[in-house]
């Protein structure tokens, strides 16, 4: 057991202590234990990060888990640059969310429960990223799903929260099923689930085919797509994106944690981790790229018209995750993970700002009822503004560098790359538009809420604003580790840090084209901001008119393309129908209850007939005995005669 074991272990210890002693003893002091645990984990992660940047690579088994014949699984630790950067993302965001929650959850009845779940969530994600085998990855994968269920449904008395928790869990189940199949197939065909063995033998998969429904499919493609299936569920890509927006029912710090660090990034991480596998299958890569780009565009358009502040940010997450998959799909894993890194900071910041706004507005989420908050909550405004420019991709903030890296590498990625580049560029414009829509509607103009709300407006306490300010620094600076050479940097993260984890994509285009890509993305982003300013700052009446002019489009976007309704019709209702009519109405009522009630009834009936024999007359018994005696005698005599 080395010191690296502490990274996942500390939050686990924190969880155990807080869940056991939180209710009776720690109560409203629970956060000391939780924060200390995560802080320790964060410090260890930073140390590890610098060691890894200095060339250290760790791969060790910590604890034997399953030993069964040739099948050996251990809880292990594998720390390479990919894991190291994930450790930084997870522990730093988690730490800030923990600190923020002290203010946000102040006085909540489930205070200890909240913090222990946060610790468990962090532990699960750390297990996921430090895994050195697929089963441990799967363990973390399911554990974050479980924690998301706990935390989304944290307000247990609220039906919508409980439903959203269930939805997240069930939708993820669809993806996880594919993922589990993928894991099993890897074991079947490679014979091991340790990363080291898998990547060493990955080439043996090439060229093999497997018959599925009579078609010969490339084995690598099948496995990659099955694994990607899990990523689609966990990272909320089309068609399994529906749970993420509903996950807003949880407390806002949880949203920040889910969206920035501990859950949705797992899919991107997994695809990046399995880059040698995905690289073997152009088909799978294409699917990843197109899914990512489509989701990105799809979610960005939905975000344009929503009014719920958290929902807009949630769709923005879906959209940005699409960006990361787009990057992975064109082979730019490094850029994808880089975007994951920068995204974690500005997205956590956006959410925590939204939480701060909610705190001030007494739980109000509708941006149409806000306005002018700039004057009341200057820190929240400033940090939200920074996050918005960062996500819009304006240099020199974090979002710009990672987004630009993705777009540039997509541009280099052949016909599919060109297509997703166009889509990505459009999304950049839309992102800038909806981000500034929130800024203008919530922070500028006149206050449109009720009088009580206006009276109640206040800046949040220090425990909330300090994490905001720290995250704002991240939202500004996180991108500086990957400044492209063209702009005078050395793209440290892509060229140096990730050099032995990901192959750097082959660059064919010229410097002029790179300038063009940068120029286009910046112009599009500025254009988005400009349009947003025009609509919501200079002509606040205009959006309504435009909406009224295209009621069809507006309605479709407002209803999120009716995906939920579609699923309701195609999956939820038939399932309920089967459950009610067949399982409850027939299987349960007729078969199960039939057997359970039928057996005693049959015995009762039989007994009813039998007790007629019991007449109570001694002679009746005597005669039956006599008859029996004669029958037995007769049998003995007759058989004896033979």
């Amino acid at each position, binding site marked *: 057991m080395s010191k690296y074991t502490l990274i996942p272990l500390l939050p686990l210890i924190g969880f155990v202590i807080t869940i056991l002693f939180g209710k009776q003893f720690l109560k409203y002091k629970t956060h000391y234990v939780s924060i200390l645990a995560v802080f320790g984990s964060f410090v260890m992660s930073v140390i590890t990060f610098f060691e890894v940047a200095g060339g250290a690579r760790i791969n060790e088994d910590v604890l034997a888990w399953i030993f069964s014949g040739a099948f050996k699984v251990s809880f292990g630790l594998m720390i390479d640059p990919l894991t190291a950067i994930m450790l930084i993302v997870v522990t730093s965001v988690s730490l800030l969310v923990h600190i923020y929650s002290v203010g946000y959850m102040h006085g909540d009845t489930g205070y200890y429960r909240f913090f222990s779940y946060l610790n468990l969530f962090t532990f699960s994600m750390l297990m996921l990223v430090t895994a050195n085998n697929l089963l441990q990855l799967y363990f973390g994968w399911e554990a974050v799903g479980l924690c998301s269920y706990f935390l989304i449904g944290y307000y247990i008395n609220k039906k919508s929260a409980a439903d959203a928790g269930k939805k997240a869990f069930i939708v993820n189940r669809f993806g996880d099923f594919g993922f589990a199949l993928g894991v099993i197939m890897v074991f079947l065909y490679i014979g091991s689930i340790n990363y080291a063995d898998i990547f060493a033998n990955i080439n043996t998969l090439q060229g093999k085919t497997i018959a599925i429904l009579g078609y010969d499919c490339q084995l690598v493609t099948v496995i990659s797509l099955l694994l990607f299936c899990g990523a689609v569920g966990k990272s909320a890509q089309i068609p399994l994106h529906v749970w993420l927006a509903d996950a807003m029912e949880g407390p806002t710090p949880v949203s920040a944690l889910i969206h920035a660090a501990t859950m949705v990034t797992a899919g991107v991480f997994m695809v990046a981790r399995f880059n040698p596998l995905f690289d073997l299958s152009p088909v799978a890569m294409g699917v990843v790229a197109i899914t990512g780009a489509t989701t990105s565009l799809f979610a960005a358009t939905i975000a344009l018209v929503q009014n719920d502040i958290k929902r807009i940010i949630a769709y923005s997450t879906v959209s940005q995750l699409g960006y990361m998959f787009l990057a992975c799909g064109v082979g730019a894993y490094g850029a994808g993970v880089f975007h994951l890194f920068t995204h974690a900071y500005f997205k956590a910041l956006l959410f925590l700002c939204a939480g701060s706004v909610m705190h001030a507005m007494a739980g109000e989420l509708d941006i149409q009822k806000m306005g002018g908050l700039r004057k009341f909550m200057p820190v929240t405004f400033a940090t939200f503004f920074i996050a918005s420019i960062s996500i819009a991709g304006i240099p020199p903030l974090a979002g710009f560098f990672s987004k630009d890296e993705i777009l540039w590498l997509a541009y280099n990625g052949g016909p599919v790359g060109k297509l997703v580049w166009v889509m990505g560029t459009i999304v950049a414009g839309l992102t800038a538009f909806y981000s500034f829509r929130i800024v203008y509607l919530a922070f500028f103009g006149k206050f449109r809420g009720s009088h009580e709300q206006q009276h109640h407006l206040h800046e949040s306490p220090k425990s909330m604003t300090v994490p905001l300010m720290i995250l704002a620094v991240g939202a500004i600076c996180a991108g500086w580790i990957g400044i492209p050479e063209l702009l005078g940097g050395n793209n440290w993260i892509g060229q140096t840090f990730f050099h032995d984890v990901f192959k750097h994509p082959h660059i064919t285009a010229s410097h002029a084209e790179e300038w063009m890509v940068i120029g286009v993305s910046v112009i599009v982003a500025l254009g988005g901001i400009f349009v947003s300013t025009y609509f919501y700052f200079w002509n606040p009446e205009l959006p309504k008119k435009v909406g009224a002019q295209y009621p069809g489009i507006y309605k479709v976007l407002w209803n999120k393309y009716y995906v939920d309704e579609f699923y309701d019709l195609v999956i939820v209702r038939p399932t309920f129908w089967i459950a009610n009519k067949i399982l409850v109405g027939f299987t349960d009522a007729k078969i199960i209850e039939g057997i359970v009630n039928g057996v005693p009834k049959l015995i009762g009936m039989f007994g009813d007939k039998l007790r007629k*024999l*019991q*007449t*109570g*007359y*001694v*002679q009746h018994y*005597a005669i039956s005995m006599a008859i029996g005696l004669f029958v037995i005698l007769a049998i003995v005599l007759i058989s004896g005669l033979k």
Partner: protein
Amino acid sequence: MVPLNWYIILSAVIFMIGVAGFLIRRNLFIMLMSIELMLNAVNISLVAYSHYLQDMKGQIFVIFIITVAAAEAAIGLAIIVSLFRNKQKIHSDEIAEMRG
């Protein structure tokens, strides 16, 4: 010398009289007497065989059976007496408390 089968036939006849009496008569005393008859029929055959086989075990058994029969008769009579005291009935058709 009386042959063995005579004893056996006698035993069978007395046994059948006992069975018939037990089945046909309704008076509890008569039924009890019929049971004694059956027991003694068996005793006859046991003694007969014991003599025929020159084995004393059969006669030892008879002594046991007579002892048990005496005890049984005492208990049976006691039951009938107490039954009569409670119900003033001695006819087995009138006593069917155990009807299912």
